[in-house]
């Protein structure tokens, strides 16, 4: 039974990775055609594409590990809110452009540290995905950090909006570093790091960029949780899924 328990934990871990990139990828894609300038529109659409591409790898492997014949598409389109394992931050509505870019930076910074560790995963399938994703993540974080600095250290208006964005999003950051028995099983198997062990490197990067952006990092340590464990999502995830899963809900089993 030990083997089965480990596979269950691995499945959960892969869902968390895949659902984070899927839900954020979908959120970012909502900007398509609406961004402040054309270059930003293209950049956001490309970022969303990368994230959804990474999702195909993570959820594809999750389906393989689960062994019930579910594909990445099945997992993305045929589950309801309670089965998603993404952190709450990625399902929040986009807000204004500044808030979207702040969230992107807070996520990219985590993603960069995380895939950096996963490249050394004892599970080669995971190491391979991380190696592929790391190159894209490097581009993402460079751009989102630049934008956070540009807007934070920009006009009075853009500065105020970016400070409001970090104040709003900060209570959602902590969940990325929570650990539970799934993480403990991943650590024990040499597959993935303890999420808490990423925090120091993360904080160093975030503090450096936010200080360059002349923004204050909130000191409140409270954080929301319930997304990565599936205990309770925000009301926003269900609304997002009605749009993302519309086709499969309206025409079950449709293919193209």
């Amino acid at each position, binding site marked *: 039974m030990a083997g089965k328990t480990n596979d269950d934990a691995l499945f959960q871990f892969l869902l968390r990775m895949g659902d984070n990139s899927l839900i954020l990828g979908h959120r970012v894609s909502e900007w398509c055609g609406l961004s402040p300038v054309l*270059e*930003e529109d293209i950049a956001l659409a490309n970022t969303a594409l990368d*994230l*959804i591409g990474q999702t195909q790898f993570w959820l594809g492997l999750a389906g393989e590990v689960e062994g019930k014949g579910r594909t990445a598409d099945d997992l993305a389109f045929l589950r309801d809110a309670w089965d998603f394992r993404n952190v709450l931050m990625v399902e929040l509505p986009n807000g204004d452009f500044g808030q979207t870019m702040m969230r992107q930076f807070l996520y990219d910074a985590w993603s960069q540290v995380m895939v950096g560790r996963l490249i050394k995963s004892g599970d080669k399938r995971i190491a391979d*995905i991380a190696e592929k994703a790391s190159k*894209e993540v490097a581009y993402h974080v460079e751009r989102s950090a630049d934008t956070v600095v540009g807007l934070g250290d920009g006009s009075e208006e853009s500065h105020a909006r970016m400070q409001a964005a970090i104040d709003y999003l900060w209570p959602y950051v902590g969940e990325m570093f929570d650990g539970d028995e799934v993480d403990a099983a991943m650590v024990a198997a040499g597959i993935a790091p303890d999420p808490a062990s990423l925090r120091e490197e993360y904080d160093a990067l975030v503090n450096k960029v936010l200080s360059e952006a002349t923004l204050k990092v909130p000191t409140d340590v409270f954080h929301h949780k319930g997304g990565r464990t599936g205990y309770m999502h925000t009301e926003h995830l269900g609304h997002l899924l009605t749009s993302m899963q519309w086709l499969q809900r309206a025409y079950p089993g449709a293919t193209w």
Partner: protein
Amino acid sequence: MGQPSVDTIWDWLDQVPDPEIPVISLVDLGIIRDVQWEGDMLNVTVTPTYSGCPATTIINLDIQTALREHGIEKLTLHRQLSPAWTTDWLTDKGKAALEKFGIAPPSAKGEPERCPNCGGHDLERTSQFGSTPCKALWRCRDCLEPFDYFKCI
């Protein structure tokens, strides 16, 4: 017909254009990682450029179509993620074709060597992301033309 050699298959694949940038072939792009016969089954290993590149599906379809037209009946395509694709694998022939087409080829210093239109060196980056995942937008201050740069990864 006898079994075509692996070299012949590579030549055929070198005739298959990249769907997004048709001036270079899939072989020029460096995404064909391996071609091997296993009995009467041809195995072709392909690596994606960017994870979410929408051209990946079309590329696989184009490979299948091309090889089937050459009479290959039993064909399996494999996806290989590691080692991850890098622009270092672009062939010199491919780089030259890109520049001639107006796309600055990737360069080790992480920015275009010169403007593909006028050869100018006074360049600025407009955006790290361009019309496809693999390109960035640049502008030449000499001829004032915008151009694509095939970015290094």
